[in-house]
């Protein structure tokens, strides 16, 4: 009885959860590593981590890897993702010129280009969506017609 209680306690403790997350991140790390190896061996112009992403997606889809094995680790990394950007972001301390007029122009370029992207992609996809819906409606109509005929 006592032993079972201890096992149950261990299973639910935060230490076990922490270990599980570390183990799952190690699996994700292995995918990154394999992706990097593939990137170096074959002349594929895709970054290693993206190759890892595609490999993981294939493994999940073909049920080679159960979702449970990476779920908590992936959720953890994605939840704390902003923390991981900080060291790279701090690099701007080497560019004090950014806080000047040329910095303001660059900021403006970024904003205008983002709005353009948003309007073009949004309008295009909404147009395509309506077109596909219409086509589906037409198909439905024609099938109804053929049935009534």
């Amino acid at each position, binding site marked *: 009885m006592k032993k079972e209680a201890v096992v149950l306690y261990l299973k639910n403790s935060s230490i076990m959860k922490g270990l599980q997350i570390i183990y799952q991140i190690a699996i994700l790390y292995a995918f990154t590593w394999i992706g990097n190896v593939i990137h170096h061996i074959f002349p594929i112009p895709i970054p290693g*981590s993206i190759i890892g*992403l595609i490999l993981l997606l294939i493994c*999940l889809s073909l049920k080679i890897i159960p979702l449970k094995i990476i779920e908590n680790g992936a959720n953890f*990394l994605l939840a704390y993702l902003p923390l*991981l950007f900080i060291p790279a972001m701090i690099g701007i301390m080497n560019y004090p010129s950014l806080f000047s007029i040329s910095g303001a122009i660059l900021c403006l370029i970024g904003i205008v280009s983002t709005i353009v992207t*948003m309007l073009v*992609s949004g309008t295009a996809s909404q147009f395509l969506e309506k077109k596909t819906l219409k086509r589906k409606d037409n198909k439905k109509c024609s099938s109804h017609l053929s049935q009534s005929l």
Partner: protein
Amino acid sequence: MQQSLIAIIVILGTVVVYLAMAKIYARLPNPILIPVLTATTLIILLLLLTNISYDEYMIGGKWINSLLGPAVVALAYPLYKNRHILISYIYPIIVGVLIGLFSGMISGILIAKVFGINRDLILSIIPKSITTPVAIQIATDLGVEPSMTMVFVMIAGFSGVILGPLFLKWSRINSSIGRGIALGSASHALGTSKAFEYGELTASISSVSMTLCAVLGSIFGPIIAWAFHI
């Protein structure tokens, strides 16, 4: 020995500052107080005050950086979870994301060229609409400083969150697919967080668009840079 001590202090310090800033943001959810921004500003101020260089900070910072690879791989998880949405709207999503990707990169290059911006800066603008961990990777592949690209990634994210809803309304982009693809392919993760306010479907489409944009952007980014002779 001293190196590992510095590394531990840097890692712990960064985590503590980030968690504190995240707590403040949870109390006051204002876009200006987003934890990445406040934490970065605070750490830069601390480094400047204590006269520590970026290279010294990176003795510990590189360990945090090394988690970016697995974080990119982890993006497979939301993509897998939303695979039904991707499959049922495959045509508008793929075409919309490709159009978004190309218009984002090319408009950035052209506007920057009009202003006579130098080559390195134009290269750092190219991956601005792509989620940060992948944008860092693309910037490195293009041979530019990732921190510069990150500034543009942040600008793209914030202009999408703050100005996005206004422009979406004005241009009558009102379907879940239109809004999701617009926010996800222009403003990556920050846009996706905004998409949640339009509902679950918009957010899922935004998340799928963001991930597809990252995968396709890592392929097309260098090609576009090459095509425009940068």
